[in-house]
């Protein structure tokens, strides 16, 4: 039982990061029906920017751990949001009237571009965050020892998800986003500035990705320029698993994906872990063709 609980917490910790990245994926998808393959690379940019800012300003000298993390998170989210908005303006907006797969190619191009830009700027070797920022305490939970940071990671993800959900459901802008997601033309007729809505989506989505990148950097310590590709794919999987375009779905999908991975490694095979995950995913989609929380509409592709 201990073993199971331990693996469950392992899975939830990984899953919460997938979920956070998946939120950005799903938001962009919800409004534009675009699979933003460059989203993972925005996440990687967040991780690298976090490291640069951390060392450049020497934040640790005059702020406590919590202060460092908050200040850093705000800066990283702001910068990555700008990168995301520029990406939308340059690579996606001209393609908005085109077939939706055209934008996918553009997104792939952007992904290649970002990945190689990171390599050229920061070098191909691993970059390492300093060690002494986050507390190293371990808490005991139901007889399982869990590092405090893992709980914080999970908590942060859940908080961000809830905040995003409330923002979308309760605010005026959120309502506009939902309207644009349902029907852009109708939204326009109702006086919603759809371009602005899309701009906002491309600020929030990448900001969340950037935050996740910073979190991975702070927590695992090690980042590299190809990480966006792997995490991006996992997050996309998570978003699909939950039902893409659906915010709670991204959260559920992310956490579930993390748990499936951990359980696959725990009880089946470690080397086959990713294959097991995909097999489970395919099985779920065969039973529920639009993901766990996806709407069952006769969607026209």
């Amino acid at each position, binding site marked *: 039982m201990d073993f199971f609980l331990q693996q469950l917490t392992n899975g939830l910790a990984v899953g919460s990061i997938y979920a956070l990245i998946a939120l950005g994926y799903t938001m962009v998808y919800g409004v534009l029906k675009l699979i933003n393959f460059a989203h993972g690379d925005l996440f990687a940019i967040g991780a690298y920017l976090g490291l640069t800012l951390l060392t450049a300003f020497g934040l640790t000298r005059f702020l406590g751990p919590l202060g460092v993390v908050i200040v850093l998170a705000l800066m990283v989210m702001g910068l990555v949001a700008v990168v995301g908005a520029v990406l939308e303006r340059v690579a996606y907006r001209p393609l908005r009237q085109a077939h939706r797969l055209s934008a996918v190619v553009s997104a792939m191009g952007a992904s290649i571009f970002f990945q190689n830009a990171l390599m050229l700027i920061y070098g191909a*070797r691993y970059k*390492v965050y300093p060690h002494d920022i986050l507390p190293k305490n371990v808490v005991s939970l139901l007889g399982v020892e869990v590092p405090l940071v893992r709980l914080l990671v999970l908590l942060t993800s859940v908080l961000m998800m809830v905040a995003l959900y409330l923002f979308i459901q309760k605010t005026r802008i959120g309502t506009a986003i939902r309207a644009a997601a349902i029907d852009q033309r109708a939204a326009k007729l109702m006086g919603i500035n759809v371009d602005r809505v899309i701009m906002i989506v491309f600020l929030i989505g990448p900001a969340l990705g950037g935050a996740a990148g910073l979190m991975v950097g702070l927590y*695992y*310590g*090690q980042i590299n320029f*190809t990480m966006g590709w792997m995490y991006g794919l996992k997050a996309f999987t998570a978003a699909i698993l939950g039902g893409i375009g659906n915010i709670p779905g991204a959260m559920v999908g992310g956490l579930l994906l993390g748990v499936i991975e*951990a359980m696959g490694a725990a009880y089946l095979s470690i080397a086959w872990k990713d294959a097991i995950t995909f097999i489970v995913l395919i099985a779920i989609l065969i039973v529920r063709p639009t993901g766990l929380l996806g709407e069952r509409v006769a969607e026209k592709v």
Partner: protein
Amino acid sequence: MKKMLLLVLLIGLLTVGSALAADPIRIGLMAPLTGAWASEGQDMKQIVELLAEDLNAAGGINGRQVRVIIADDGGDPRTAALAAQRLSTQNILAVIGTYGSAVTEASQGIYDEAGIIQVANGSTAIRLTEKGNPYFLRTCPRDDEQGLVGFKALKDGGFKAIAILHDNSSYAKGLADETRALLQKDGANIVFFDALTPQQNDYTAILTRMRAANPDVVFFTGYYGEAGLLLRQKMEMNWTVPFIGGDATNNPDLVKIAGPTAAAGYRFLSPPVPQDLDTPEAKAFMASYRNKYNAEPGSVWAVLAGDGFRVITKAIEATDSTDRDKIVAYLKNEMQDFPGLTGEISFDEKGDRVGDLYRVYEVNAEGKFVMLP
């Protein structure tokens, strides 16, 4: 229209490319400059370029300058075959590289047909030198040799229950398989044998599972990035089992990733790196490297590419010839205990590096690598 234009462009580029056959001695470097192994490839490039610069500044080889022609193999056999074709048309005498056995193998036949000497640096699969290919050599040891060293280290440690973890890369898998085979023949108890997926950051699920198998020691044959994370996450879960690693973990970044506390006591087997050698060659190289790049050299594989460059240029100098048969004959027969950046270098008739290369290193409490006697 566009297709025609492209073709004209292709032909144009080709004529420009082939017209450049000048006086300097041309040596190729095939390395994964992009893709998953880009960090290895970029290091290889840095080191070989640095050595070439230093060599040229010192007057070149018997007065002739050396030019390094670089081709990206992307860490993938298909791209490597293209890179090899390209280098073969560039009038090179020898080529250094590359990293990864399958990638090297895809290029072997092409160089062989073009009569270009190839000195591989990170291709440890046994079969590469078993084909009777006269112009192929390598500065890295073979899997079977490394496996033997791994086996000895585990046996000498007196461990009863052994866990072996690799990362499914051809190098790590080869080392893990060889070691396991030797251990099994010796009747050792292997309680865990599996592969992690590189670059996934979170290995707690694997560590938890491994812990449940209750090993006395974990032998990890993969890379420093994952080794660093494993050590760090192992400490976070208060697990104190000793870790032993292969030579792909011989990289100072390991300690940066794991943190000095988690890395302390970690041992690995590796050929010596120039940081640990007190030969004048190694010292000069280190000074020059630090001066130019303001960092420590990365993995031992990249340094082995540097050694590949050094043995080739040495052979050209000693034979004062660009005749490939003479050069290969010199490398295989006459070169004895050449002071390399990774210890002394000699080659056997097959083109494999000979000699007892391996040392055992331990990370001390300050996070420095210490060579054990």
